[in-house]
């Protein structure tokens, strides 16, 4: 995405970001006021207020981190990049809990190349894999598969988990900005990932979700120049 497009997107987001940050900050400020006035008379209430402070601080920090990670996506240098290398690098960099089994597979390896910025694809895959991990409590399986379709003209990357699934009431809005069902979710990860994929003429969609797991798919055009 060109810098001017990125700035335009960020400009459009500014109002929403301000609103999303000010609400948790107001809640923090209310709880600090209440803690000052109530003291520790009621230990349970005191602990609840501290927990709320911690959640809201995490939320504001996550919102800022998401915005920063977006702006940190380096100046786009589109090159022919290997899906395999990108997936492996994301997984290597992530602290995947030991009780989660990770299955990674690549088919049609000679065609698994796309022409885009490596850091952008990295941030898309990282977001999908992070969501998958967060959806699983214990003993889950994270599966990342990549293969080609449409006469090897489209690269598919499927990221699936065996987690709790996306609640029905938020399924229609998962790609909307600031829509999140997680306590400390920012609602920025998926919309930004989708925007990156679409800017690169691709698709990012939810293939399925249920109480048994969720699967997201990224489709991108195969790079014309195939790098061996």
């Amino acid at each position, binding site marked *: 995405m060109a810098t001017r497009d990125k700035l335009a997107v960020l400009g459009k987001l500014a109002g929403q970001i301000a*609103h999303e940050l*000010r*609400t948790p*900050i107001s809640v923090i400020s*209310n709880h600090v006021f209440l803690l000052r006035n*109530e003291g520790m008379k009621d230990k349970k209430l005191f602990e609840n207020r501290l927990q709320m402070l911690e959640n809201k601080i995490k939320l504001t920090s996550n919102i800022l981190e998401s915005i920063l990670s977006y702006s940190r996506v380096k100046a786009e240098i589109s090159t022919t990049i290997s899906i395999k290398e990108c997936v492996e690098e994301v997984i290597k960099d992530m602290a995947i809990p030991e009780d989660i089994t990770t299955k990674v597979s690549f088919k049609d390896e000679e065609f698994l190349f796309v022409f885009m910025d490596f850091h952008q694809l990295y941030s898309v895959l990282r977001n999908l894999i992070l969501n998958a991990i967060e959806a699983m409590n214990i003993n889950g399986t994270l599966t990342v598969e990549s293969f080609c379709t449409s006469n090897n003209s489209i690269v598919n990357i499927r990221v699936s988990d065996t987690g709790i699934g996306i609640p029905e009431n938020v399924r229609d809005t998962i790609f909307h900005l600031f829509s999140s069902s997680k306590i400390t979710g920012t609602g920025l990860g998926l919309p930004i990932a989708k925007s990156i994929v679409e800017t690169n003429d691709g698709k990012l969609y939810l293939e399925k979700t249920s109480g048994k797991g969720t699967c997201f798919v990224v489709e991108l055009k195969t790079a014309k120049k195939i790098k061996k």
Partner: protein
Amino acid sequence: MKQKESNNKPRILLVDDDKDMCESLSDVLTLGSNYDVSYSINPLEALEIIKKTDFVMAIIDFKMPNMNGLELLKHIKKLKPRMIVFLLTAFISNELVEQAKKEGAARVLSKFIWPAEILKYISATLAGIE
């Protein structure tokens, strides 16, 4: 609708789609202050509550799904013209302040307001009508 207390204290209704915001502000207003506070996280539900209950004041958020704070303000004023309404917003613009005042808002306040300040504004405004 959640209600904190029920007695002869001035009744205030909070409307914000963020439940944590409603609960914490409601705690602030009931702590050491003499208000009877209820809240709703849905502007449409809030209108139903207002039809049935006499509140002296409503403190409403501007950005909400289904209906924004300005629209809610217009509906409130149609139903209860004497009800005092404070509009809270993340962005205070002259245009919004003008529009809100035109529709009858008593005050437009930044959403990032210190609890002590909002208590001060409430007591000053209620003292003004007594």
